[in-house]
């Protein structure tokens, strides 16, 4: 026979875990962006976020509901980045100093200004702006990112010089940035 008190306890635990997962899910794009900002050009950024997720899950009992989940998650990510650097015997922050790292961390914890950080549909604005690109332009970006190919490799695929391709990627990303800022401005007006 099932003890009804145990059932009640289990239901509460389930609800707490569901809430925890929901919070984690909502923060994925922001965590990825945060680690990517701390480690520019580092291909293992996604691995570090994955480790961060695992740590967050393991330590979920430590998190007190009602406190700042975002700040807690970013502090875990911050230490994961440090651990990753230490393991690779890179004791310095690539080129960032502590002041800059603090400034970046505070921006991500406090602002939550980016649409991608707030929207449940992660990177919504980026997705929207990508959709506006011409097919040929989008293909350049997709090859650059999806295949993880270097500019040199892409230049061979497209039969274009590296300088030309680098400039194309530069212009496309600058355009995406402007488009995203425009969407955010619009969102501010709506809010």
């Amino acid at each position, binding site marked *: 026979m099932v003890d009804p008190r145990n059932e009640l306890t289990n239901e509460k*635990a389930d609800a707490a875990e569901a809430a925890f997962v929901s919070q984690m899910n909502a923060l994925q794009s922001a965590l990825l962006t945060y680690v*990517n900002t701390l480690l520019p050009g580092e291909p293992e950024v*996604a691995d570090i976020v994955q480790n961060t997720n695992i740590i967050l899950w393991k330590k979920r009992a430590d998190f007190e509901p009602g406190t700042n989940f975002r700040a807690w998650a970013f502090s875990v990510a911050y230490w994961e980045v440090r651990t990753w650097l230490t393991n690779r015997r890179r004791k310095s922050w690539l080129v960032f100093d502590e002041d800059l790292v603090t400034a970046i961390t505070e921006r991500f914890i406090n602002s939550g200004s980016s649409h991608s950080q707030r929207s449940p549909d992660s990177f919504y604005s980026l997705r929207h702006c990508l*959709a506006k690109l011409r097919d040929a332009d989008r293909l350049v970006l997709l090859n650059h990112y999806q295949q993880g190919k270097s500019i040199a490799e892409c230049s061979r695929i497209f039969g274009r010089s590296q300088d030309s391709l680098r400039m194309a990627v530069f212009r496309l990303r600058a355009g995406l940035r402007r488009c995203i800022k*425009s969407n955010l401005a619009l969102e501010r007006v709506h809010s």
Partner: protein
Amino acid sequence: MKPREYELLLQRFVDGDLDEDACREVVALIKSDPSVFEIYCEYAEIDAGMRYLTGGPANLLEQQTALTEQSRQTTLKRAKGVALLAAAAAIIVLSTVLYLRLIAEAPPVLTFRSSSDTRLTITHTVESEETPEPDALAVGSRMMVKQGCVEFTFESGVSCIVKGPADLTLLEENSLRLDRGSSWFHVPTKAVGFQVQTPELEVVDLGTEFGVISQPDENDEVHVLKGRVALTALLGRKEEVILEAGQARTVNFVGRLSQTAVRPEAFLTELPSSLPSISISFDDLVGDQLSVTGSHPDATSIEARLVSSTPASCVIPGVVGNAIAFNGKGDWIQTDWPGFSGDTPRSVAFWFRIPPGAHSASHFPAVVGWGSLENHYNGKWKVWFTRNNDDGELLPGISLGADDYFCETPVDDGHWHHLVAIFNGPAIADEMPECSLYLDGTSRPLLHHFGPEGPPASREVQTVTSGPHANPMAIGFGLDTKVPTLQADLDELQLFEGVIPEQTILELYEMGRAR
């Protein structure tokens, strides 16, 4: 370092594409300038987003799956949480599919079409390497409308009619910079937040229909026709206000927003079929008021008063319908219209008849003119008849103030003639202003001379239409009241905001001649 240069550096930094020294330089830049810091964070976010959306080497979907597996092993009682994670993963898959669907349907940000005889140039500084379609603009594209009208349709549903001369740049998909021009905007609900920026004002739409006027040497204006807009002065005091329908503001040089009468009629809300024009046919005279018609936004509000002791006696049979007979003894038409301003291209067409021996005086009145009466710079527009000193015959001419033009065909022969006087718009550098005269449908060679004040300091044409030196359009009378009034018959006066093509000139001439 220019913004473009440090943006390029920041992107290369995000890509890990810089050597150690360059990295130090970029970090110093990021630390020293908060705006650069922000831009760096934005590029890092785009980079992260691209990796996320394209499912790069280790995407988050895989991470979610791994997490889900770990969750399963923990306890069966957590099945609900696992289900949530799986659902989250499904959402990501779904959104990726949506993204792929969206990318196949990417329309241009902005398309346009123009009225006939519109002259425009487009400069693309697009972020893609491909040039947009001929009828489309991309973010960064700049359009300069020398004359005519353009209708814009934004992907967001915003529609806009711009009357040239105009200079505009598409800043973002929902943001336009209007450095010059008169524009009407209709913004549907789904596009609320659309922005227009002039050199002096920023307008944010809050669900509305509004007009913006930005002209060099004049205060920018915003007129709200429906709904509301948020208006901010970009100068000095930077005053802000929310404007409702029926309200208008003009901004002065210290950033103060002043009330002005809302003028819905000042804006074109449909693309006209031809160049904006103003017509006085002289057919309809009520009391001393003459009817003014045309497609130009100002046309319906222009007041044209025949100044004469016996107005009705001035009306005679003309080339088409009635004409006005000026006797050279004090009759003329005074309007309240300031005229085409600055270096706006323009064409003035009319029929005229001058009796032999008319105008024996040494000074000659204008057929039509406006602007400043000063002659040491090009601040006026006057179409007139000047006497040839050699044989005393009257010759048609154009005076811009300092630069004068005339053709050598005498016209004081007692017959009807058709004249079209044209100013071609801004010239290159400091070259002589370009003007043309068409007499009876034929282009005539022009002779040039300077006005009584001699060569000007600048050849630039800046017809004055505001301020203490501005004189509104008069017909049959010069800007200088010491000059006598016109002694001639006039008919079918038409003013076009732009250079009309030769075909139109011929049609105007043939239409009158056929009657």
